[in-house]
């Protein structure tokens, strides 16, 4: 949409820029909406000020971060890493056949409909909600976390995998078939090179996503550092909370670094 509309050039050579009515209406609407929200959310100045006051006290208690209980911290982080790694691994394992089954250029419609249905279901809910359901079903601990994140991974990887299979060029496959190659060879040389590049990209993105989410599913009891964080919160150990947050950021940064290396190695 072209926000900068041109104006009109009169015969005397002066240029009158046109008023952009859409933008004006848009801004008005925004202001009205914000006013409505202020009343809806019961916001008022006093509350905001006391909130800021609270906030500064809060920040004061968070710093300096307290790393004395680092063993607990490391345990929690380690469990989160375990959950993230295993969930990605299982997710990839399941997504490979799922992706094939959902590819409309390889499979008959009834198969792809079923596979796609399952994939959409996996993607429908926020990982935390899935985690809660698994916690209620299989109990507290890492198992629920792994299952929840595996479901989330399948919803993402299988979908993208199916899409990349649907985009492959059949001509390349035709030529490989014409040399008399066996079915596995046709897949290895005709299909794989076409999808592998994108596939490693999806896996590394999902690993990163799982690592982030694994820090969080603990909040609802599915294992990992999230549980430690929640407990610290409830005990008002805010300096420990900030220590945990800093470690989480560090782990995620490290994960991104590993990601970049992997991308460079696998071209």
């Amino acid at each position: 949409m072209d926000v900068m509309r041109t104006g009109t050039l009169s015969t005397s050579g002066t240029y009158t820029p046109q008023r952009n009515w859409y933008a004006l209406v848009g801004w008005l609407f925004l202001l009205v909406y914000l006013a409505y929200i202020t009343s809806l959310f019961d916001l008022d100045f006093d509350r905001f000020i006391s909130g800021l006051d609270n906030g500064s006290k809060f920040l004061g208690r968070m710093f300096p971060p307290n790393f004395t209980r680092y063993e607990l911290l490391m345990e929690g982080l380690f469990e989160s890493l375990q959950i993230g790694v295993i969930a990605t691994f299982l997710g990839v394992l399941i997504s490979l056949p799922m992706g094939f089954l959902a590819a409309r250029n390889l499979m008959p419609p009834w198969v792809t409909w079923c596979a796609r249905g399952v994939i959409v279901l996996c993607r429908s809910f926020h990982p935390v909600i899935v985690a809660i359901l698994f916690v209620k079903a299989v109990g507290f601990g890492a198992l629920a976390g792994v299952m929840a994140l595996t479901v989330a991974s399948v919803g993402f990887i299988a979908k993208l995998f199916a899409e990349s299979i649907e985009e492959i060029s059949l001509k390349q496959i035709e030529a490989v078939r014409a040399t008399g190659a066996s079915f596995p060879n046709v897949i290895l040389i005709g299909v794989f090179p076409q999808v592998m590049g994108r596939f490693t990209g999806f896996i590394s993105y999902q690993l990163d996503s799982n690592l982030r989410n694994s820090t969080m599913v603990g909040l609802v009891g599915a294992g990992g550092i999230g549980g430690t964080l929640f407990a610290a919160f409830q005990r008002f150990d805010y300096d420990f909370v900030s220590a945990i947050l800093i470690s989480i950021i560090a782990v995620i940064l490290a994960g991104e670094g590993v990601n970049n290396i992997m991308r460079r190695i696998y071209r």
Partner: protein
Amino acid sequence: MTEPSKYQGSEIQSVTDHSLDIRNLTKEYTRGVPVLQSVSVSIEANGITAIIGPSGTGKSTLIRCINRLIDPTEGDILFRGKNLAKLYGRELRFARRHIGMVFQEYNLVERLSVMENVLSGRLGYVSAWRAWMRKFSAGDIERAFSILEQVGMADFANQRADALSGGQRQRVSIARALMQSPALLLADEPTSSLDPRTSVEILELMTNQAKNLEIPVMINIHDVSLAQRFADRVLGMANGKIVFDGSPSELNEEHLKTIYGGQGWMS
């Protein structure tokens, strides 16, 4: 007006004999609408055969039926002691190993290197494991290099196929076909995506290589002058039937009108 064929197929079919005998080949994509109508022709064990005719007349279908990229509805294709039309599974693959094919759009595996594309000509002979690990025998690799030299692409061995020009890709495609040590070379409009000068170079390359190896070549081509220049024998197709069969010098305007229809075609 059909010229009587001078090349009656010999009845002796053996593995060392590279002649091709097509009998009553019919292909119907939809029932009652045959694209190939009971085509019968015998190709000698040596020599360049060009197939000309308008688009949609079954030229491509005929070529693709030979190596069974398309399955004929009826008919027999006798080659090297076997009926290609009736082969399935492993037997078909084994037969395909001896038939090399060059495609209009090169059909190389774009993300793989030139060397890998040439080596894929041997995929009919290697196991899935060796294909995946790219473990080809030293003899294969040496042969690949010498073939690349013959097609003039030795310097490009490690380039990715999608980094090459059209003419270069077609050379690699020819190298792949030659790598199969084929007993028959098929080409489906190999020059239609190339400029005039490159087209001539490619056709020269293909025909010289085939003459050295003493194998027959069947080329689909829509450029009649190129066909006349390089072929020993010309087959003209119209409406799924062969309506001309003779040497290039015998091809006159009357014949072209029968094949392509319409007045004043060459003027």
